[in-house]
């Protein structure tokens, strides 16, 4: 049985979800719950750190699609970082890079949110 885990932490006021293992049709509901919980706490700025993610299937991608509209309506975003090439290829095949921002590392993704915030202030 494929194993999936997600760790939720907060850095600089941004929720970081560190995904681990296999995000597929079996594990998608679990991830959905985690994401729902984050949103229920009115946190809409989210970095998905995929460094430890080994595989993602359509159902896993679907969870992101399911929430992104609501998150963006609330002024937030989901941004991806540290994606393994094999995993990134799946995102790419399905056209995700046109809709989502990807960063090489967590710092970059976090910084992009800070950048947004300072742009808004100025």
């Amino acid at each position: 049985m494929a194993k999936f885990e997600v760790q939720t932490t907060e850095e600089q006021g941004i929720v970081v979800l560190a995904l681990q293992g296999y995000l597929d049709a079996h594990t998608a509901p679990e991830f959905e719950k985690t994401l729902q919980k984050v949103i229920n706490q009115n946190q809409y700025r989210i970095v998905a750190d995929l460094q430890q993610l080994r595989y993602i299937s359509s159902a896993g991608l679907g969870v992101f699609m399911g929430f992104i509209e609501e998150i963006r309506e609330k002024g937030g975003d989901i941004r991806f970082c540290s994606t393994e090439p094999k995993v990134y290829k799946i995102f790419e095949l399905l056209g995700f890079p046109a809709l989502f921002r990807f960063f090489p590392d967590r710092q970059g993704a976090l910084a992009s949110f800070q950048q947004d915030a300072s742009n808004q202030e100025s």
Partner: protein
Amino acid sequence: MKKSKPESADTSHTISDETSRSRVELASLLEISQALNRSLELGDILNRLLLVILGRLMISRGLVLLREPSNGLLKPACARGIKPAALPEPVLVQNLPTRFFHIRPSSAQPLPDALVGLMKQRGLVAGLPIVHQDRVLGLVLLGPRLNGDTFGEEEVRFLASLASLAGMSIHNALQVAQIQSVNQQLDFRIQQLRTLFELTQALSSTLNTDQVLKTLTYALMGQFLVNHHAVILFEEAGPLLVRSQGLEARPLLSLLQEGLAECKDGRAQMVRALPAGPLRKALIHAGVEVLLPLFHQERCSGVVLLGGRANGQPYRETDLEFLATLGSQAAISLENARLFSASLEKQRMEEELNVARAIQQRLLPGKIVQPPGYRMAGRNVPTRQVGGDYFDVIPVQGHRIALMVADVSGKGVPAALLMANLQAAFRLIIHEPLSLSEMAGRLNRLIYQNTAIEQFATAFLALLDVAAHTLTYVNAGHNYPLLVQANGRLTLLKSTGTILGLLPEYQFQEATVSLQPQDLLVIYTDGINEAVNDRQEEFGEDRLRKLIQQKAHLPPEQLLAAILNEVNRYAGDLPQADDMTLLIVRREA
């Protein structure tokens, strides 16, 4: 990258201008050839080619059109000095020139009108075909030279050399691009298959409708980059919107059920390809782009609606095929989930009925009292369903035994509840200092007040005085009990009042018979005489009376068993509609 420099011209002062210019040209050809061959990326190559030409001939505007290998359409591939909005749409041009051309009227070669028009609109005056192995791969179209010079023989020669160099590189790059595109498509197909495989597994591993739909919709959302969707199930009670995001699907429900009632397969359909009508209009209005019927074994159990893709791309034919495959998988899983939950429900109800039946059996007397000088036997045979028969034998003060046989109307839980109610009331009331008719009056009131109008009970209540050998009874609309005397004479203990629960106030009469030694009393419910055989013929009262007269000599337990045996033999294995109850009393001495 180190650029190759033209050799300096100081080796000889005798070299003419022309020769030195040729050398420069050769050098730049060499340079461009190296640059072109360094890359297999088409955009790179075209960009460099255009830059070299524009720079070398002092031209400010240029456009490269490439022919699509599949349909021959000329498509803009690279441009300089032309705004993106001014780029031409892909166009089919026959008889493309194979040599450098200029659109001035005196041009040696006749040019296709479409090409000339396209060029004139964008201020392009000359063109250079890119040829590889006698095939025109595309055209480089150029604006006028800024210094006002024309394209001389020399320039044309230079351009021709360049074009043939570029031809090879572009050909290679196109090949690579094609392989990449095939690879991309293959990867995509593999990804689709993987999704399908994973989903098939996931769907078949759950019997939970909600889980099936969740898995399906997430896979669709991820696969097609779509977030607006809805799922509607066509249940027996009507269409049910079970999931919805970003689509106003509620107004569509009945239209969809009507529209899909005639659907013959599970093919996914583009909404814009539907026949014009209210359904198509409503779907478009709601933002639905694709309809995916959940079709399994001739039945459309629901439909998935998908909105537009978030990347703005259209759904393709292969997407629809993929959707149909997923849809049929989901439909099977939904059907399984439905069957499973139906059987769970049935199982649950049966368990509840079992409990009710067990409770009901416990309300009946376990061991029948045997007063001196009398033998008694009683039994209730419940049907598979919970029924409403009740009998009781209760010793009361003064050598008396209260007897009761009742049949509550209806079946199932309501009947069982009323039976339990009647039992409780009778057991309470029987010890009160009341006459039997008064008791019947109270039971009647109780049933009338506590139940719906269609619920009632027939009952035979009696007090047997085992000292005085009398039987006082009230027959409230019940089957006539049989009193068989020792000489074989048969008396029917007919009604002394109407059924319980029919009228709010009713005065029951009571009657009394005396019992002689060997007299036999048989009280029964209509489950006995109305038992049917495979021709739907009833066992009947005549047959019952004859049987009892024949076997009247048997002790009550044996007579009871004999009657039940005979009825069961008559009815065979047919499930009987009603409970069967028998209460038999014989005065021994």
